[in-house]
């Protein structure tokens, strides 16, 4: 069957090349049937990639170790679901997943738009096809998942720390995000190529961008949660280059989501939007490059792989093509409207963009500098946490404030008097909160206090928006409060969905601030019966248990937890020694987490070292508010769904504007 897989990938490559060449020819020469044919080729490319993927998936399920890739990442005893997730457990498989999602998105995008904006879509096809050519070439010629060998008796298995539901779902979500950014990018390039300076490309890809951005956000949170519970060093984000690889396109995409609103409302920032979407996509290529090649010495990626140089080439091509197209069409993209006032919602969005891009670029520098330093000076460096923490605060805290201020400021020009009025309540609540927190001792961390105060401001501003909106709606329709709220949100999905997402970001900020600025840590070696104290908890080490399973020997230290004299049950922490054939007996740390659902606080217990004499060296954290981070993920998803929800009235209005789908010409 691997021959079928290989053949299917060759077919995908062929179809992609055809779609690229025929599509470009059809667009240049204006040939309708050829354009249709190129479109079909993209759809065919998806079909053949599905075939290749099914072949690989089946090989995993059937333990076909004649495929080197299957043998390297799975074994007979691996649980069913994890066998499937081993598909993307290695380089070749994850590239195939990338291609699968890419061809899937491409096919869907061109099919959904088959009757609309034909002059635009005819150029989108070759751009998407070009990206498909790149990835399918890698899979055919450089890193094939279908390499065969003499089948060993059993495979190498999947790293036990990856056998975790969060780690299983983390790559697919991330890829849905990374790859999703290719669609707005392709439409932007299509707009430049076709010379269309209107917003059609933005309107067509609004939901794509939102979907990709949401997937990228959820994917990162899944990864962070995995790091927190499974890797267990006590944190959820280490500013590792591979983690930053996903954060950078996410920040660029966030900036883009906001700046397109300005283009929509005021017709400004056309060049900026095209630049941003190109940046977001190139960063997502760069992110894949960082993770896949051994170019950065991070904990995760050490393999010096063959695909590194190819990826670099793709990124360079993408950057050069995008830059060339933008420069070529620059005269067309000049907007006529100007920023009227530095105190207006447009201005706030502009500041938000500047901060987001600044943060993104500082992270990029932090990732790239070690590589550049080694290449240019021959001296490698390590950029550590303090660098990232500093810039996160410098740029992130003002961003947090702007998130609350933005919705309160009017478009075009806001009067100072008007500002004073709208800011009064949220500002007052924020100041009050700050004073109360200061009294409660939050002054131990100034950035933490600022984060909390700004968060109060934003939450108050969001609440105010909901209250005002619902009240206005009720004045019109005399519905009850819940019904008015629902219909308000239904009629303004993007706005109120956006507010819910902002609330999620506030929760995230609170969770991060609480767990990093106000955490406590204690460590010490305990013999059975001994205790240690951390924050207001008291932990008593009771005994050591050992359990033997098929996969591992599990050693756990049982610890009793008390707070304020009250007994809170027990927590277990320890180590697993995995019974894996090979020179490296794998040991993983299994942490014990006790969550206080009322306060969102976690008691995080690590058994650093289990000694033969039964003593255990413990490291215990108390992390306030950390669970708000995970809650933020759910709220984020909820808000995105609201914003994404199809709006029939808006669709009709847009159809009229673009005179498509047989709608009548605009009239009085």
């Amino acid at each position: 069957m691997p021959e079928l897989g290989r053949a299917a990938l060759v077919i995908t490559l062929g179809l992609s090349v055809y779609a690229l060449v025929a599509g470009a020819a059809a667009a240049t020469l204006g040939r309708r049937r050829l354009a249709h044919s190129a479109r079909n080729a993209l759809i065919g490319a998806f079909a053949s990639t599905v075939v290749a993927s099914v072949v690989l998936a089946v090989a995993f399920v059937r333990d076909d170790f004649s495929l080197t890739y299957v043998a390297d990442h799975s074994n007979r005893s691996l649980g069913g679901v994890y066998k499937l997730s081993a598909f993307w457990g290695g380089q070749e498989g994850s590239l195939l997943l990338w291609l699968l999602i890419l061809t899937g998105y491409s096919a869907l995008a061109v099919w959904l738009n088959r009757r609309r904006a034909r002059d635009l879509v005819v150029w989108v096809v070759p751009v998407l096809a070009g990206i498909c050519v790149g990835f399918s070439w890698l899979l055919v010629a450089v890193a094939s998942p279908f390499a065969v060998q003499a089948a060993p008796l059993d495979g190498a298995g999947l790293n036990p720390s990856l056998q975790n539901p969060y780690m299983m779902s983390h790559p697919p979500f991330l890829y849905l995000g990374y790859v999703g950014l290719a669609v707005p990018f392709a439409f932007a390039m299509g707009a430049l190529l076709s010379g269309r300076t209107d917003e059609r490309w933005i309107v067509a890809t609004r939901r794509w961008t939102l979907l990709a951005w949401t997937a990228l956000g959820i994917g990162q949170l899944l990864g962070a949660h995995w790091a927190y519970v499974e890797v267990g060093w006590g944190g959820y984000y280490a500013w590792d280059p591979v983690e930053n690889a996903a954060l950078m396109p996410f920040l660029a995409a966030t900036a883009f989501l906001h700046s397109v609103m300005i283009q929509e409302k005021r017709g400004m920032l056309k060049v900026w939007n095209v630049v941003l979407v190109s940046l977001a996509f190139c960063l997502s290529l760069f992110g894949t490059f960082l993770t896949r090649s051994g170019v950065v010495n991070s904990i995760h990626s050490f393999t010096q792989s063959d695909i590194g140089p190819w990826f670099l080439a793709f990124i360079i091509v993408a950057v050069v093509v995008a830059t060339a197209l933008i420069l070529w069409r620059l005269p067309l993209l000049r907007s006529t409207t100007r920023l009227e006032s530095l105190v207006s919602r447009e201005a706030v969005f502009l500041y938000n963009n500047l901060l987001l891009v600044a943060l993104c670029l500082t992270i990029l520098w932090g990732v790239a500098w070690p590589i550049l330093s080694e290449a240019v000076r021959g001296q490698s460096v390590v950029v550590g946490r303090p660098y990232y923490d500093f810039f996160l605060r410098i740029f992130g805290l003002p961003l947090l404030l702007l998130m609350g201020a933005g919705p309160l400021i009017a478009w075009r020009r806001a009067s100072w008097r008007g500002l004073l009025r709208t800011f009064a309540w949220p500002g007052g609540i924020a100041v009050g909160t700050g004073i109360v927190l200061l009294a409660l001792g939050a002054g131990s961390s100034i950035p933490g206090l600022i984060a909390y105060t700004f968060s109060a401001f934003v939450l108050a501003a969001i609440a105010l928006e909901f209250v005002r909106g619902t009240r206005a709606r009720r004045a019109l329709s005399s519905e009850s409060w819940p019904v008015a709220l629902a219909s308000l949100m239904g009629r303004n999905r993007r706005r109120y969905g956006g507010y819910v997402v902002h609330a999620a970001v506030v929760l995230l900020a609170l969770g991060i601030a609480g767990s990093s600025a106000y955490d406590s840590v204690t460590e010490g070696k305990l013999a059975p019966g001994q205790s240690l104290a951390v924050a207001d908890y008291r932990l008593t080490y009771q005994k050591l248990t050992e359990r033997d399973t098929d996969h591992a020997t599990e050693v756990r230290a049982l610890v009793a937890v008390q707070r304020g004299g009250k007994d809170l049950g027990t927590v277990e922490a320890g180590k697993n020694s995995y019974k894996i054939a090979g020179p490296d007996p794998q040991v993983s740390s299994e942490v014990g987490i006790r969550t206080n659902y009322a306060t969102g606080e976690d008691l995080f217990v690590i058994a650093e070292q289990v000694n033969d004499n039964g003593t255990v060296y413990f490291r215990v954290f108390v992390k306030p508010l950390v669970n708000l981070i995970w809650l933020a993920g759910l709220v984020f998803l909820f808000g995105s769904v609201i914003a994404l929800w199809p709006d029939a009235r808006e669709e009709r209005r847009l159809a009229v504007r673009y005179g498509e789908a047989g709608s009548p010409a605009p009239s009085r």
Partner: protein
Amino acid sequence: MARKRSPARLVIALSIAAVLAVFLLYTSIAGGGTPSVKPSEVRSQTGTVSVAGLVVGPVTGDAYAGGLRFKLRDIKGDSPETVAVLYKGSVPDLFKIGRHIVVDGELKNGTFVASPGSMVTKCPSKYTAVKPPA
């Protein structure tokens, strides 16, 4: 109608200048990252560096008590020179002789005294299609 020059360009220019200023200020104070060196180069360095090396035995002591002692040598084994390391703090589960690790610290009296908790192991991860070193 008097046409006001768009303040947008000014704002953007000033912001970029501000960001660059902050950035340069930070890096000039806090440094442009910790130099990453090989164990054979440690003796020629001063200040805090990050060492990436291969763990060589014997491994003695307790990282959680008096300190873990071991030696590091170059990963790409040109030089047989090793540097003695004293480490306190969290030891990653994968630590053992023959493992590649990264640790920050400073050379003091011939021993590389590591910053507590700064050890990170490099492990042959899931992404390897086991490629022999070039």
